[in-house]
């Protein structure tokens, strides 16, 4: 068993694990980012719904809403 052979063995396993861990890290970061974007969209949608329904509720409360 020469030191040179061990160097090759170490290089091969290091390369495999570094590449795999880097890919997993990239995947998990992208997934987290997508979940954040999804939450952002949901909150925007909730906000839009709330602003759309607020004037109608006001009109109903004042008794001026409804069909002409």
């Amino acid at each position, binding site marked *: *068993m*020469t030191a*040179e*052979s*061990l160097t*090759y*063995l170490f*290089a*091969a*396993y290091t*390369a*495999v694990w570094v*590449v*795999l861990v880097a*890919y*997993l890290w990239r*995947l*998990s970061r*992208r*997934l987290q980012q*997508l*979940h954040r*974007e*999804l939450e952002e*969209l949901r909150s*925007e*949608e909730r906000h839009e719904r709330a602003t759309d329904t607020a004037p109608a509720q006001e009109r109903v409360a004042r008794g001026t809403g409804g069909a002409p």
Partner: protein
Amino acid sequence: MQIGPQTVVSRSLVPLLAVCSAASMLLTLWLIFVYVPTDRVQGVVQRIFYVHVPLAMMTFLAFGVTAVASAAYLWSRNPKYDHCAHASAEVGLLFCSLVLITGPIWAKPIWGTWWTWDARLTTTLILWLIYAGYLMLRSLTMHSEQGARYAAVLGIVGALDIPIINRSVYWWRTIHPAVLVTREGGTGLTDPRMQLTLLCSVLAFFFLFAWLLWLRYRQAVLEARMTALWAAQRIPR
């Protein structure tokens, strides 16, 4: 929000695959560095086989999945098959890159050169180039149906290289060792401990492949959903 049976399976599958993958990898590493005997001819460098061979097998499986999912997409036009093909091609290219990295690291001390234009090496490089092209095509034609169709055709055609790689050691004069079988002048793994280690390693890399594929598939599905939602809201990204 209602949680359907599909969501429950999806949520429990990811940690299950992660645990299976980590546990089998730890066992495999113990087998490779403690249990398995050192090869009398090649020495410790032969231990590179225990990652190189399973990575090559998972590369073939990944590109095989890409081909089948691409065919299913062309048949049904269901985008989930397209996402599956895309995800599998990316994971396959990752594994194929690792095959092309670990192979030369083994070859240098054994053959005395990092690379030779041997039939198996060359056909494997061609496979890598085909699926690198596949991913480039996907990135250039993002979220377009036409791009998905072209990529599906490339995904199927590219997989035709897999049987050629597999048979290359029999069809042409090659110096690449046949690890799984003992052919005339070959270097098959004859020691049962070596065979057990290789089997465990294949299983570990299979779990890793399944885990990465599932994560990448979920990412592709989420990306498509997000693009549709942004388009519906007409909000510039």
